[in-house]
């Protein structure tokens, strides 16, 4: 529904965004790709050369890699499940006629404003610390040994912290969707004899499909790159227990100063992100159609 001139104008209007994003994507990616086939160690800068797929093979042969891959997916999957399920429950709760709903929302939204290093340090020091943390105080209050969160359950702890950061996002989107559901629909279902669970299952949940899709899509985009929280708390440890793919790449680049390997890891991470994106778009794209 348009004319040649408006279509031409449209192309020129989209062009800056597309060109900028293309450069932003392709230039660093091409450089990363180049380095990934090179021997390039900052500690021995004289020895350089082509090494074929060696950098990649190093990753595939490293047991840490598979753990990191698993950790990355566990982090994304774990946070998604926790935030979506809790988000739905909290949204259902807040959507009830409760006193002071506006202020409640202010409280619930707060974690979203906390930058990752601060969030991680609050949890690490004020809560999970084995001596001074609030959790250890609670454990001692019950006469139990404090749990060593970051040592014994590093990945679960990181998942917990990240879930706390993203819970407001999920809750508020789901709440918005919930509030747009007409009460007449629910009343009609009630007249039709649907129980509370049936109303949730057949009316409320389908209504929220689109919102859940948005939550999964946006969160996945941000979760795949989670870095700061691990850097601040566990540093990927103990050992490699909480090392994700981004963190493993970071270790190769900064600790081992092996740019070639880090670059190969980067390419692998990009491929992984593309695979995830592909399945995400295929599985969820339909829900976004208007």
């Amino acid at each position, binding site marked *: *529904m348009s004319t040649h001139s*408006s279509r031409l*104008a*449209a192309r020129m209007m*989209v062009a*800056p*965004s*597309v060109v900028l*994003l293309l450069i932003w994507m392709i*230039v*660093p*990616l091409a*450089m990363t790709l180049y*380095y990934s086939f090179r021997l390039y160690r900052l500690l021995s800068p004289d020895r350089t050369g082509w090494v074929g797929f060696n950098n990649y093979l190093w990753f595939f042969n490293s047991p840490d890699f598979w753990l990191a891959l698993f950790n990355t997916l566990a982090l994304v999957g774990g946070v998604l499940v926790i935030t979506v399920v809790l988000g739905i429950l909290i949204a259902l*709760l807040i959507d009830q*006629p*409760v006193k*002071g709903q*506006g202020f*409640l929302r202010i409280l619930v*939204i*707060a*974690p*979203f*404003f*906390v930058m990752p*290093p*601060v*969030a991680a340090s*609050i949890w690490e*020091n*004020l*809560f999970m610390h084995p*001596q*001074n943390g*609030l959790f250890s105080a609670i454990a001692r209050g019950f006469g139990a040994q404090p749990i060593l969160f970051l040592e014994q359950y590093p990945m679960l702890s990181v998942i917990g912290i990240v879930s*706390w950061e993203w819970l407001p*996002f999920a809750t508020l*989107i789901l709440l*918005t*969707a919930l509030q*747009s559901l007409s009460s007449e629909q629910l009343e009609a279902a009630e007249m039709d004899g649907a129980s509370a669970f049936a109303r949730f299952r057949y009316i409320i949940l389908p209504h929220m499909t689109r*919102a859940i899709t948005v939550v999964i899509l946006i969160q996945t*985009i941000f979760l*795949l*790159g989670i*870095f700061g929280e691990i850097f*601040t708390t566990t540093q990927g440890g103990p050992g490699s227990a909480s090392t994700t793919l981004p963190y493993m*790449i*970071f270790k190769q*680049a900064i600790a081992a100063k092996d740019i070639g390997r880090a*670059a190969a*890891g*980067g*390419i692998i*991470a*990009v491929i992984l*992100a593309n695979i995830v994106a592909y399945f995400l778009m295929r599985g969820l*794209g339909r829900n*976004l159609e208007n």
Partner: protein
Amino acid sequence: MARALSHRRMWITTAAAWAVALLIFFPVLWMILTSFKTEPSAVAMPPQFLSADWTLENYAEVWARSDYPRFFWNSVVIAVGSTLLGLVIAIPAAWAMAFVPGRKTKDLLMWMLSTKMMPAVAVMIPLYLIFQRLGLMDTRIGLVLVLMLMNLPIIVWMLYTYFKEIPGEILEAARMDGANLWNEIAHVLTPMALPGIASTMLLNIILAWNEAFWTIVLTTTRAAPLSAFIASFSAPQGLFYAKLSAASAMAILPILILGWFSQKQLVRGLTFGAVK
């Protein structure tokens, strides 16, 4: 009978909702409380609530020992600058996608979004090298550019969903009324989409403010924003809880207050315009 019951139910749900909300908010609250305690009181076991020694000393000390205003100003410039620049580039693109859609529009949008899936760490080294080569290292303009590019797909997507709610007939009317493209966008589309643009702006300012990878990797001192301030503070200070908490509070309070005051627009923005 029924009324009394529902009245009771309302109090129960109210209590439950408040309990959950306080639980979610508690870490922030605890951090703020700790920031007003003396160091011994902050690590006292069992934890002190009302019996703590209250003090403003931590804030005074953090203020004295670091150049907070510079970090703060860098954060403002980078967050607001990257958002405004992003809007200038994204508004025309979103206009085109919303009002002159083609078969490829949806794919283009998804492609833009997918550029965000690229882990920052993966391109850290190339970007570091490019920044060094171009002399952008530790400059605010460099960070404005990077954060703008990072958030551009989100800005385009949000604006696209808001613009699509505006009936195309109004823009056609403007065209019939003799408006050229600039007038159409400046006098009709932008004022009409102002609430959506405001939401987009807010959300992206927050995302940029809280960005804590590039802001740390690509800065040292001159352009370092509050994310770098907090990172530098937690490392050497070790376990000075109260001061760490005070510094944390100073890093997040500006955005927390902004977010609370503009909660309504923000919630709209948070849904990325995709949920009505």
